[in-house]
């Protein structure tokens, strides 16, 4: 009956609208007027509303609306409090947090250290791929032990293996605190139907699977981070619809159909010089060239640093930027974006573009290039750059899932690959470990299969240090080692833009776009 009504309704309304639009001379209705609603888009539909199981980009984005984390990214650097007001790292294995005493769940339950501990226990105990990722990012590879003290308002986290990146890990959306009602009904939690599960500023008020989600601001919420530069009012309602086409996003933004839109291509330029729109930028992906050095794989780069350096010299990152990213990317000089804490930002450490020097080494070489599908301009640019240096290049461009699988598990099929590193987590150790330590086959994430004991030692030193300065120094040493050995060469950081129309704003904190900081400013 509902479907019949939809069809009949659409038919009638479309006919009426068509007739009316013939007489109309103004813009569609949505474009004007004060509002308490923000209409925004997701590229894909959220699949789960359980933050611990969030794995796709959309799941992660909406998790921030519904679930608060202990810490948040600082506005320009470091961390600020979320549900925690203070924190201390006694060592890389022992952390203590003071939990704010005024935070509540959507059903009024107080968020105590025990509530936080129970939520973490749930996350750490899940046999789920998404949860394992969050658990590793938050607590490392060891076993965490949570000791709440409700009287003192503190939570102690002890790790069986040192992990210095716990503070950064606890800013991540997947570690959002799930209230007791959600833990009591995990199926309902995933479906977003448990009213009391939410600890964040918004509750899910309506969702149509695969199509849209609507969030409503909690009346009783007052646990916003102490942002200094965030002005305006949070929306009472946030409508998120699924829309992946950048042209359509631009048209909708222009017509007022959405209030904010994310752009990865030249459509962002339509709003660049218009005072009626504001833009924030953030790193989305870091593109690197990875050299396969797996023993016995047949890769020409195994044990041949000169050849690796020549490939790096043959490619102009700015040319790659123009060909593959409409020139919207920004320069990158290490394993991930410059906005990352402890990321090197020194051009002298990477191979300078020198096609003549590259040609002397690459002439006559045969190189197997692996890249993901649907990115022909980038693949063509890389292949032609190497061909111009005298190399014979075969390009393999499988589907993204196969590309990932091939890089990790089939080193015998490629010599050099374009790797896309998520640039939104802010955790540089995850990017460094792509080039040092155990390979995927050994249970690690070293996709280049390098044997770099020096880099690995520096990485290990950073991961076991409780001192932030020491951590950074060691992480930088690991990056220097990787760059000196040319185990990879950075290409470009894919920089996305969030454009808001007049009356709306959004914010990027330390390179991280925060959906909960969208505001209505007029």
């Amino acid at each position, binding site marked *: 009956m509902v479907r019949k009504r939809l069809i009949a309704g659409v038919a009638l309304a479309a006919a009426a609208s068509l007739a009316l639009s013939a007489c109309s001379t103004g813009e569609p209705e949505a474009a004007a007027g004060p509002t308490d609603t923000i209409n925004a888009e997701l590229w*894909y539909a959220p699949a789960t509303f359980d933050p611990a199981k969030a794995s796709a980009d959309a799941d992660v984005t909406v998790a921030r609306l519904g679930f608060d984390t202990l810490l948040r990214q600082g506005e320009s650097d470091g961390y600020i409090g979320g549900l925690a007001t203070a924190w201390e790292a006694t060592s890389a294995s022992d952390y203590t947090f003071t939990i704010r005493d005024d935070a509540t769940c959507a059903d009024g339950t107080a968020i105590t250290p025990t509530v936080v501990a129970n939520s973490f226990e749930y996350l750490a105990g899940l046999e789920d791929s998404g949860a394992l990722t969050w658990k590793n990012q938050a607590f490392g590879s060891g076993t965490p032990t949570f000791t709440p003290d409700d009287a003192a308002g503190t939570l102690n986290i002890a790790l069986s293996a040192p992990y210095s990146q716990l503070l950064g890990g606890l800013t991540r959306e997947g570690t959002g605190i799930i209230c007791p009602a959600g833990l009591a009904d995990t199926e309902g939690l995933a479906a977003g139907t448990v009213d009391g599960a939410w600890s964040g500023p918004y509750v899910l008020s309506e969702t149509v*699977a695969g199509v849209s989600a609507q969030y409503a601001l909690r009346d009783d919420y007052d646990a916003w981070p102490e942002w200094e530069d965030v002005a305006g009012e949070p929306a009472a309602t946030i409508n998120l619809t699924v829309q992946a086409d950048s042209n359509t996003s631009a048209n909708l933004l222009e017509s007022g159909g959405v209030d904010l839109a994310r752009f990865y291509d030249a459509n962002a330029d339509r709003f660049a010089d218009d005072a009626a729109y504001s833009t924030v930028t953030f790193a989305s992906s870091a593109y690197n060239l990875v050299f396969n050095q797996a023993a016995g794989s047949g890769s020409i780069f195994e044990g041949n640093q000169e050849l690796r350096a020549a490939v790096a010299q043959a490619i102009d990152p700015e040319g790659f930027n123009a060909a593959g990213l409409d020139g919207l990317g920004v320069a990158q000089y290490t394993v991930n974006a410059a906005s990352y804490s402890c990321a090197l930002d020194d051009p002298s450490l990477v191979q300078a573009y020198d096609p003549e020097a590259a040609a002397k080494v690459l002439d006559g070489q045969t190189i197997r290039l692996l890249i993901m599908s649907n990115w022909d301009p980038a693949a063509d640019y890389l292949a032609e750059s190497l061909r111009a240096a005298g190399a014979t290049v075969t390009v393999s461009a499988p589907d993204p899932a196969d590309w990932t699988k091939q890089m990790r598990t089939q080193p015998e099929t490629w010599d050099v690959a374009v790797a896309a590193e998520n640039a939104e987590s802010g955790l540089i150790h995850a990017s460094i470990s792509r080039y040092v330590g155990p390979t995927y086959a050994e249970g690690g994430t070293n996709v280049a299969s390098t044997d770099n004991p020096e880099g690995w030692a520096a990485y290990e030193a950073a991961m076991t240090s409780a001192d932030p300065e020491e951590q950074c120094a060691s992480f930088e040493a690991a990056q220097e080692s990787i760059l000196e050995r040319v185990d990879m060469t950075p290409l470009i950081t894919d920089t996305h833009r969030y454009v808001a129309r007049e009356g709306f704003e959004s914010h990027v904190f330390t390179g991280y776009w925060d959906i909960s900081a969208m505001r209505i400013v007029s």
Partner: protein
Amino acid sequence: MSTTTATNSPSPGPGAPVSPGTIKAASLGGAWRAFLLRRLLGLASNLVLLVLVTFLIVQLIPGDPATAIAGENATLAQVELVRTQLGLDQPFLVQLWQYLAGVVQGDFGDSYRYQQPAMNIVLTALPYTLAITLVSVLLLLVLGIALGMTVGVATRGDRRRWLDLSFTMVTGFISSVPTYVLATAFVFVFAVFLKVLPPAYSPAYDIGTAAVLPILSLTIGGTCSVARIVRRETSVILEQDYMRTARGWRLPTMTLYAKHMLPNLLTTALTLSGIILTALLGSALITEAVFAWPGLGGVIVQAIAIDKDYPIIRGAVFVIGLISLVLTLVIDVILGLIDPRTLGEKRD
């Protein structure tokens, strides 16, 4: 209807034996029974084929579902955990058996991504797709028949050749333009340039207003195609003896065209409508992308391109195939009612 059919039946020539009775009620009933039995068996066998094909085609889609679902940061152990949880580590025949056993009970399995019955996701999006396609088919049939008839009548007997030529050129051009190109052009004209209609679906707009451009995009090409065919059929029918006789009797215009010509045109138009609707379902999936319309298109694209969500792909393809098969059957039944000769059996 039967009068029209009898009128259309070929007249016996001079000296030919006279048929004892053109159509007898009993023999017509037998023809219907045979027709329905034949078509229902065909529908059943097509459904079986559809189920098997939907299972097999997803295996050809490049990409590993477990890798896609596990995410980019997953280790190999996490990928294997997902593979086991999804049942993708089972042998091919076991997976096929589980799939068939589920389909028999109307269960296409749980979506890999959404962890809920795939058919729920498909049926949530389906009404949005049907809303624009069914309205488009109705519109294009009505408009196409009206336009084709009008031009056919106006150009009868080589009159108004300029109109005939212009009509043929314009409709030929429009019907040759792909739907997504028309859709993009409409967005530019009505949304970006004139700013009188929304460029795409958004909660900020009334759903009816947002549906105007998708429906227009789907309708206009089909209208031109139908109009061209109807115009040709009209010319042929107008030259037939019964129409000449009707004109000779100076029947009123409405009686002449609505009562005597239209039923004969409907046979062609209805046959076309089944084909057009099936094609429109395909076009709609692409058009939905242009207009961010929350129908099956977006669901299928995400399931294929991003998630490798086999249950959703299977469910969506099955539903689209089922709609196509059922509509074809319904149209054949209606055609049989209008013109029993289409039942496909000799009745002496």
